[in-house]
């Protein structure tokens, strides 16, 4: 029955729009789109969580697709007609064949203009822009801080921007725009008068970091951590770590700051690098850490100086980042008052350890988190905070490659150690591994496996009440589900 429904979905009127939606969801990445297309069994359920955003490229693509399909169907009918009239031998069979294959044929043909467009239009234009940006970065007199790592890059970048802006003219790459083309657009907008540039590096495959560094030419660099991410392309964690640490070839060792709280970063840290963690940064030590749903506070000490700081960011794992940024700010000439004010302005970013209230319960929305270290931080927070009832919700992580089983078993162990009253897993290919980790640690709470994540998220208000704490980590979009 399912197979029949899936087959019929190829011929539904919504099918062309579904194809364009799949392309849009994968940001027109043809490889990811084709991978998704070929593993899909029923196209009628694809646009479940979201639907096609009718942007100009999407409308053009949809029009082209519909025209192509229409022409093929017309041709099929002509061939069938000729075949039936005995004018063209085999016309009937060929016409029927064309009708049968049109959905699959056009779903694959549609990538051709995209690939060609990328090769002949986008890439040359981007290459030109990138080349120009290299000159802009080279000529810029400000401090250029590169932010690299498997996780926490955007958080670190935003922290640097917020705190350093209290006393300096700072520009940072927007949102999570962190590849060469976005660096190039960022460079075009610079005035040249900035004191500090903060540039986020979004690694995706081996060689990326060195490529970004060669163009942006950083004077300083921060490595936020190494964790299993993009392993489908890096293959091993070691390869990912090597790529991230390749930044060390571009900055002086004493200007390379590494988060030593990241276990997987430690093997790459050399003594001459400046490491920081939850206890110390650039000669400052940390005391009196307090984490609540309103934020995180701590005191940083050096010699006889003590500075009490409070951030709106939630979680002990934020302390290392915060103290480093505060210490760097002081090193770059900010006053204590400026640092204090800057740290106070740091707030949770959307879907990243972002607290909100629902039916009286506290929800920590960390659905943009997508790595093991984030899971470690989220489960640690769940364990640390007091609550009437604790719930933990996750579908698991994506793009974990061959390490997926080991990583998700570890996710299960981490959840079990936080010991929530209820664990909600979204059913997918990694659920079994998480369950294995939970079982390994003898998790005794309630375990729910949801077939329909959207249904659960929509109704989560029914599950919680005042005094409850819910940590939601990661969310699989349609192309991963």
């Amino acid at each position: 029955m399912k197979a029949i429904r899936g087959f019929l979905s190829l011929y539904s009127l919504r099918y062309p729009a579904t194809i364009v939606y799949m392309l849009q969801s994968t940001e027109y990445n043809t490889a990811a789109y084709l991978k998704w297309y070929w593993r899909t069994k029923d196209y009628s359920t694809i646009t479940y969580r979201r639907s096609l955003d009718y942007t100009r490229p999407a409308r053009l693509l949809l029009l082209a697709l519909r025209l192509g399909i229409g022409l093929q169907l017309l041709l099929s009918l002509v061939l069938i007609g000729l075949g039936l009239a005995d004018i063209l031998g085999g016309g009937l069979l060929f016409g029927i064949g064309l009708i049968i294959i049109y959905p699959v044929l056009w779903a694959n043909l549609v990538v051709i203009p995209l690939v060609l467009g990328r090769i002949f239009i986008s890439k040359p234009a981007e290459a030109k822009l990138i080349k120009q940006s290299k000159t802009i970065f080279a000529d810029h007199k400000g401090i250029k801080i590169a932010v690299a790592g498997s996780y926490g890059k955007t958080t670190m970048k935003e922290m640097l921007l917020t705190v350093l802006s209290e006393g300096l003219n700072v520009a940072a790459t927007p949102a999570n725009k962190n590849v060469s083309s976005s660096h190039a657009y960022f460079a075009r907008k610079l005035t040249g008068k900035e004191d500090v540039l903060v540039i986020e590096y979004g690694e995706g495959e081996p060689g990326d970091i060195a490529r970004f560094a060669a163009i942006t030419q950083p004077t300083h660099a921060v490595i936020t951590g190494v964790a299993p991410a993009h392993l489908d392309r890096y293959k091993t964690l070691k390869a990912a770590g090597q790529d991230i640490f390749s930044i060390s070839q571009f900055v002086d060792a004493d200007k390379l700051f590494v988060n030593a709280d990241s276990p997987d970063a430690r093997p790459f840290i050399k003594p001459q690098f400046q490491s920081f963690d939850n206890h110390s940064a650039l000669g400052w030590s940390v005391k009196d850490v307090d984490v609540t749903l309103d934020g995180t506070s701590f005191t940083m000490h050096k010699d006889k100086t003590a500075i009490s700081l409070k951030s709106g960011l939630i979680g002990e794992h934020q302390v290392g980042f915060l103290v480093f940024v505060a210490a760097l700010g002081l090193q770059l000439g900010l006053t204590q008052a400026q640092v204090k004010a800057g740290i106070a302005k740091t707030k949770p970013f959307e879907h990243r350890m972002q607290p909100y209230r629902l039916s009286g319960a506290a929800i920590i929305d960390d659905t943009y988190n997508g790595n093991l270290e984030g899971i470690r931080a989220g489960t640690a927070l769940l364990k640390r905070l007091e609550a009437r009832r604790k719930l933990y919700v996750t579908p698991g992580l994506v793009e974990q490659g061959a390490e997926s089983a080991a990583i998700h078993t570890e996710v299960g162990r981490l959840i079990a150690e936080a010991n929530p009253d209820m664990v909600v897993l979204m059913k997918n290919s990694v659920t079994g591994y998480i369950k294995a980790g939970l079982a390994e640690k003898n998790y005794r709470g309630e375990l729910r496996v949801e077939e329909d994540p959207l249904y659960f998220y929509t109704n989560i208000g029914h599950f919680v009440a005042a005094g409850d704490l819910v940590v939601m980590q990661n969310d699989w979009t349609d192309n991963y589900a």
Partner: protein
Amino acid sequence: METVAVFFGGRSAEHDVSIVTALSSVIKPLELTRKYKVEAIYIAKNGAWYWDEKLKDITLFTSGAIESFIESAKPVSVQFDGGMVLIKQGKGLAAKKQTTRIDVVFPAMHGTYGEDGSLMGLLDMAGVAYVGCDTASAAVAMDKVLAKQQAAASGIPITKFVWFTKTKVDNELAATIKQVTASLSYPVFVKPAHLGSSIGISRATNDQELSNALEVAAHYDNKILVEEAVQNLIEVTLPIIGNNEPIPALLEKPLTSAEDFFDFETKYMQGGKKGKGSKGSKGAQGYSQIPAELPDDLYSTAEMTGLAVYQALSCSGIARVDMLIDSKAGKVYFNEVNPLPGGLYAHNWSKAGVSSVELVEKLIIYAKERAAQRQVLATTFSTNYLQQF
């Protein structure tokens, strides 16, 4: 998996409120537990029963499509065979009869023929477990006059009141007004004795308003209550669950002025505030202060009064006790009991630390617990009476 039948709609002025209670506060959380098979039983305004999955969709009711559904659907019949079985005839010549045995009934009904003990009596006869107050307590609770008398007999403070039959009001209006003014001082509240959701309630400050108020109340009910208004009024309400050991939620204070009161429009249509430009659109959630900001001793007295009323009326499962407070005198009066609060008062329970899912699960447990207690009671008594006859 146990089957829970949720009854809603009914031959009551609160038919529409019941639909919202059932669909948003009962069926959805019950299904989310994934512990029960949930059947929706809709009782139409003419009293016919319908059983269908489609009845779980609120748009069937909001769009008005329920009318065409009723026209085409066949009403359900019930079989009592040591329990309760629903039977639905299929459509067409070869259609199969559909049946299901009900383990627990969750009445999500307000007002007459649902909340007033009528349905509970039927369920008692069927021997099926059901959520909420039993036949006797529901009947007493839904009769505001009986409830006040019962509370007064248990030493719980109540306001001064008189009551009349509809016949008396219809035929001897002037004498009724005289009787009221002889016993009570203005302002007074006039209420249909059996209706909830504040339907038909009016406030009167003179004979003319009283006359109108009596006529309105007599339009809805054959028993009319007139009670003296409390001075320096603070209205509070307390949702309670449990059988022998009742558990209170949080005392809730409606944010209305002393001259105002919760009529149906205020409660359900305006999101809580009277007049134009009112904010909020979540019914009971939009117009209350939870927990009520009262001095500790007054809060505690009100909470204890609520629990005392719950027990005095032998309530079980769930109920909500409304009270009136004279803030200057620091005195708490019992006002009325609602055996099935609209929306289960889930918004209040949520603030008290009980989620919607937990609430319905607890109510099912209480229902089964009470049914088990009844099961062990002796219902036979051996005599030789017949032999002697």
